């Protein structure tokens, strides 16, 4: 009270018994125009914003912007990941189909919006945490957070008249009234404090770094993380006790027969003569036969099966001319036997041609023999057949 213009003054706060009393007092105190008028209440009191002339909270707009940003972020993130960087096709959907992104877009929108609303309110708009505010160090705060309604006239600039403020609050019916000085900050930001904090941070870094080093080193080799490593299996260049013989790859059980490679079970070529080709002739079978013939037979027997090899004669072998009468009259079974068992210089082709392929090759060979030994009469039959079948040009004229 010694100096009316007090630089070290925060303001004056007076307490009211009820929200009604507070509301009634505000216009009177504001009229005096002594400084910024602010109310301190235990709970939000409706209508105070208007009475104090405080503007509407801009939080709604902030939340809206951040919510939209959240939706966009989530959409672009998912679209880029699922559509471009790492496309996964599930359910036959296009990688960039957006419908499946909606749930996560919604969640991220809510996340952005709520954190903007909550933390934006606390940290950005209300400038909290702030432990040094003068009101927090006043006597009145205990009553304010309990059940009293504080009205404060706060200093704006240098010309704050404490006595006038006290009088104004008294006239409005506040009691008790407290003059709140600016608290003196001894402050934690001394050199010694900074030194200590830096030392503390350095020690914490060293300890956590060392702990992290060992964690990264030990974590993968300690159970249960190591369970995937210690399973019984064969490692390269390492002995393994998993199988008796120490090998990783095991021989098949004796007597194992692979699919399509049933043993012949016949003693001689003469016995094989009775075998009947189980495949019916069709375009598909002939095509299969042609392919197998071209892959395995053609190098020696020639493309026309006439024993003129496509190889050079440097090999010195004399492949059979399958167009010879002997082979044209050969039963299918004998050819089959030859493919399986080999003959003279010809090795067994049992490992290369499956049962089906062998019979297909025989059909194809018969087709080749027929083509090379055509008779004039053949054409009549073809004409007749062509005439009865669709797409025949021969009979048109």
């Amino acid at each position, binding site marked *: 009270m010694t100096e009316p213009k007090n630089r070290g003054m925060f303001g004056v706060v007076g307490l009211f018994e009820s929200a009604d009393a507070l509301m009634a007092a505000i216009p009177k105190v504001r009229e005096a125009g002594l400084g910024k008028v602010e109310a301190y209440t235990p709970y939000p009191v*409706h*209508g105070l914003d208007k009475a104090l002339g405080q503007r509407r909270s801009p939080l709604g707009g902030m939340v809206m912007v951040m919510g939209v940003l959240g939706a966009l972020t989530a959409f672009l993130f998912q679209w880029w990941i699922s559509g471009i960087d790492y496309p*996964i096709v599930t359910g036959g959907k296009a990688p960039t189909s957006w419908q499946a992104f909606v749930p996560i877009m919604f*969640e991220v929108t809510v996340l952005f919006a*709520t954190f903007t*609303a909550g933390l*934006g309110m606390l940290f950005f*708009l209300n400038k*909290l*945490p702030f432990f040094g505010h003068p009101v927090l160090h006043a006597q009145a705060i205990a009553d304010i957070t309990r059940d009293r309604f504080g009205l404060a006239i706060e200093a704006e600039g240098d010309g704050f008249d404490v006595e006038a403020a006290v009088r104004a609050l008294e006239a409005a019916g506040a009691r008790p009234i407290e003059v709140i000085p600016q608290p003196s900050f001894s402050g934690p930001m001394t050199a010694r404090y900074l030194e200590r904090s830096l030392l503390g941070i350095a020690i914490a870094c060293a300890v956590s770094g060392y702990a992290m080093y060992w964690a990264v080193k030990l974590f993968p080799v300690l159970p249960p993380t190591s369970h995937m490593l210690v399973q019984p299996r064969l490692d390269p260049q390492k002995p393994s006790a998993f199988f008796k013989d120490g090998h990783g790859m095991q021989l098949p059980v004796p007597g194992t027969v692979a699919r399509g490679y049933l043993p012949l079970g016949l003693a001689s070529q003469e016995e094989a003569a009775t075998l009947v080709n189980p495949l019916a002739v069709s375009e598909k079978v002939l095509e299969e036969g042609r392919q197998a013939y071209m892959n395995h037979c053609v190098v020696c027997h020639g493309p026309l099966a006439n024993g003129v090899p496509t190889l050079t004669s440097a090999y010195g072998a004399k492949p059979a001319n399958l167009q010879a009468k002997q082979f044209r009259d050969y039963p299918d079974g004998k050819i089959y036997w030859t493919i399986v068992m080999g003959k003279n210089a010809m090795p067994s082709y049992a490992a290369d041609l499956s049962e089906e392929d062998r019979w297909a090759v025989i059909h194809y060979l018969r087709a080749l023999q027929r083509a090379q030994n055509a008779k004039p009469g053949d054409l009549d039959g073809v004409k007749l057949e062509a005439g009865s079948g669709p797409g025949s040009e021969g009979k048109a004229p």
Partner: protein
Amino acid sequence: MKAEAVRLPEELQAPALTAGLVTSGSLDDQVLKFPAKKPPLAWYVGFAITSSIMTLGLALIGYTIATGIGVWGNTNPVFWAFDIINFVFWVGIGHAGTLISAILFLFRKRWRNAIARFAEAMTIFAVMCAGIFPLIHVGRPWVAFWLFPYPNQRAVWPNFRSPLLWDVFAVSTYFSVSLLFWYLGLLPDIASMRDRATGKIRKAVYSVLCLGWRGANSHWNHFEKAYLLLAGLATGLVLSVHSVVSFDFAVSLVPGWHMTIFPPYFVTGAIFAGFAMVLMVLIVVRETMDMKNLITAYHLDVMSRVILAMSCLMGYAYLMEGFTAWYSMNPFLHSIFKNYFMGAYWWAGWLTLACNVFIPQLFWFKKCRQSYVWMIVIALAVTTGMWFERFVIIVVSLHHDFLPASWHLYKPTLVDYGILLGSFGLFFTMVLLFARVLPVIATTEMKGILPGAQPHVVKSEE
């Protein structure tokens, strides 16, 4: 008199939300004294029991992780069993809290203020319990962070078309938002506790926790706006979370799961189970902490009515499920639906129906809405029924899959039961701790709705 003419009949008047004389000061004295007081012996006994159960559960989780999830009863074709049932169950329990704090806030149901704090706390604890189960179900929980989309040296990303990934986002968002919502509500209450605290350490802790809240009106201005926005956003969130949980089932092709009714059906069930749990816990709080004047018979009555309404909705959902099965003319769906009530697990189907639809109908009687015994019996029935509902949905639908050769009856092991029990231990341990450390009733919100708390005439300023 004019005032006489306008007076509403008694049954239409808003009921008193507190009993006896309650003022802002007495409210603080009554609610905020607990954190400063030494708990009674009964609390220690309760805490010893719940924390031992929790320890048992944690030990069994440790055993599971060390050995592998082969110690559970899950096997082909029932790969989802107790863990997912418990997950859905606990997430559901949490929903009542958000409903009370968000949806009832938007509807201006002022009776919510007395029970909101506890319900919100239960939300957070329930989601914590729920979070454990998917984590341990992945088998190698130390690499559970692979679920999150983060750039990694393997250059792979998670599949954003999988409902399981939606779940990760939905539940983690739900937990963070619930925590934020709860903390914001607590802030002014902690400020009150700070100013009441006498101990130096207590004062320092509360000071930091309330971030130096001082009740300035410019702060309240933003605070109220934030609270309103959070309530609006949490409303959408609470409806979405259990919908997304239901997508885990509905988006698959398993008969009995692949139904459009699942999202609303799950949300209803969640609110139903959550309210039952809140009712049970609040009855205990009301009696042991002497809160009869703040949590009145009216509150219990209203909560019972909510449970009744939800029960009817559940009955409707079950009917619709049956109707969908019949109307689909799909023999697989027919067979699954028959299995619910006539298969190997027929008892679970009937238990669900009895506990969720028939027993809560007792709340039509006023006597049941006013008697502790009936309320607790019905709430227990609902909790049991809702757990078994998830059992029926998950196990019964899975145990007869598309390949009859692999049909298999699921039998849980002791470890399964132990972990389920342990999650209840964790939940109630957290509840007991909360009841002793933080204000169990939102005193700030209650102050705002006491008679005479708001100014009578709000003058429009020039």
